[in-house]
């Protein structure tokens, strides 16, 4: 990975970082099967990978490859059938605030104002109302939604709603951000703006992100690393570091390397899909 700056050896400050050799998240031989119409479906098979702290990991794959299931398992919402999942060395049991989940839909409560939606996790956590509102205002400013605190979700555009959802998720102070195609339902222009916005916010945050998408350019533009998944059974078919510099922005998208990555991943997906590529009408949106 490029842009990785190592601390000079002379720095004598003691840090509380965990041992550097331990990945933040370790997924080992993860499998997920379920039965549908008395048939066993292998949603995931032997999925293994490590995620170091602070990495932006894109998981790229066609619909039905189990990438969302994988994210749901990491989030603790679903259980794996086999394999193990270690977070900072400890097995994952159920959802937790250390893994902030962002859904495909913004999932804001329509009966709450934007401010109250973002403040809700703080209220649940036992903060006082005024304090929760203050925190919500700060977070809304971070995602560029100042001035819309008193609006209701129905009054905002899809992009603005996802910004609010991002603010709410950041409010959990998670170690890992789990994003399940959060820009998939947005129009093309809004999606590009949101990608740049997310990059900007992430580059200042030091968060670990696992970002699910079926959009090649999105995966490459955002990610330090891209895992490509294949379907039936869902498994990892490629693990590629993205050697684009940081910070990334509008100019990154014009970088000739972007096009190279695009054709590389497209080739992988085309091979994986094989001659039946068009049978389910599942062409990639790129």
């Amino acid at each position: 990975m490029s842009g990785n700056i190592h601390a000079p050896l002379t720095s004598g400050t003691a840090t509380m970082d965990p041992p550097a050799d331990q990945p933040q998240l370790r997924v080992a031989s993860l499998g997920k099967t379920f039965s549908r119409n008395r048939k066993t479906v292998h949603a995931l098979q032997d999925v293994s990978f490590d995620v170091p702290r602070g990495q932006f990991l894109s998981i790229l794959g066609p619909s039905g490859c189990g990438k969302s299931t994988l994210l749901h398992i990491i989030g603790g919402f679903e259980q794996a059938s086999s394999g193990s999942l270690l977070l900072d060395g400890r097995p994952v049991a159920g959802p937790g605030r250390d893994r902030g989940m962002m859904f495909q839909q913004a999932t804001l409560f329509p009966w709450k104002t934007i401010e109250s939606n973002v403040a809700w996790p703080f209220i649940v956590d036992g903060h006082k109302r005024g304090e929760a509102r203050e925190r919500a205002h700060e977070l809304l400013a971070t995602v560029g939604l100042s001035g819309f605190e008193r609006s209701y979700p129905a009054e905002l555009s899809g992009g603005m709603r996802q910004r609010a959802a991002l603010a709410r998720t950041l409010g959990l102070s998670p170690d890992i951000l789990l994003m399940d195609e959060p820009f998939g339902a947005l129009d093309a222009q809004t999606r590009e703006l949101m990608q740049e916005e997310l990059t900007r916010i992430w580059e200042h945050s030091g968060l670990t992100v696992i970002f699910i998408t079926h959009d090649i350019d999105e995966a490459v533009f955002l990610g330090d690393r891209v895992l490509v998944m294949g379907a039936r059974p869902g498994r990892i078919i490629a693990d590629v570091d993205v050697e684009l510099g940081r910070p990334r922005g509008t100019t990154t998208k014009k970088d000739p390397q972007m096009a190279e990555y695009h054709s590389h991943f497209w080739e992988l997906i085309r091979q994986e899909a094989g001659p039946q590529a068009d049978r389910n009408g599942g062409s990639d949106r790129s």
Partner: protein
Amino acid sequence: MANPTATATAAIRNASPGPSLRRLLGIALLLAVWELVANTSGTRLTPTLREIGTRIAFDLETGMLWFHGRLTLMLAFSGLLIAVVIGCATGLLMARSRWAEAMMQPLLGATYPIPRLALYPILILLFGLGAAPKVTLVVLECLYPMALGTYVGARSVTKDQLWLARNVGAGWLRTLRDVTLPAALPAMLTGLRAAAPIMLIVIVVTEMIGENRGLGYMLMLARANFEPDGVLAVVAVLGVLGFLFDRLIALLSKLLVFWERGVRM
């Protein structure tokens, strides 16, 4: 701020004449037809609007309407309140527990078409004459719309909303209060709106049988004395009450379910 949906809805509303005006127009038409029939038939069975109005004024003056109406409404609302509590609890339970759902659904489905008014004689035998069998019958009738409304409403909570609550660390009580109940509220109010007229019908019918007070009794007394204007005075009062309750619940929905645009009651 740009909000195409709301703007479009507003435009449609402004384009047509006031909806409340149209509502009143239907009622005015019914009254006009009645008046026409009353004036041309020439029998005492169809008193004119003026005669009915005079009778209502008379019943108000003597305190009859107030005395009997108060009793009727007290029993009716007691029954409705109990039905709301039991119905909401049942509906929530059905939406949250597969066991409860599997058990309750066939039960509700099988007992829904039974005319529960037919149970009234049995209820009288069980509880004796008086308030208890009446309230019980109101509860039995109003339970269905409340339970089904709450069930449908609570089922409308999305998986993502529940996962979000789990992610945030909200307990079941917090989730019920902050997520499930608000999401279920629109359908619960629709259930209440269906229950309110049923409540009036049932309570009045029970008062028509072996009772010596209440609006149903007032109606039967006027019938026994062969006073069609007295019967119709009670009928008109019931109509007004039903209309008022309906508007009240509609107003309540508008205030409480403000986020559901385009849904007008």
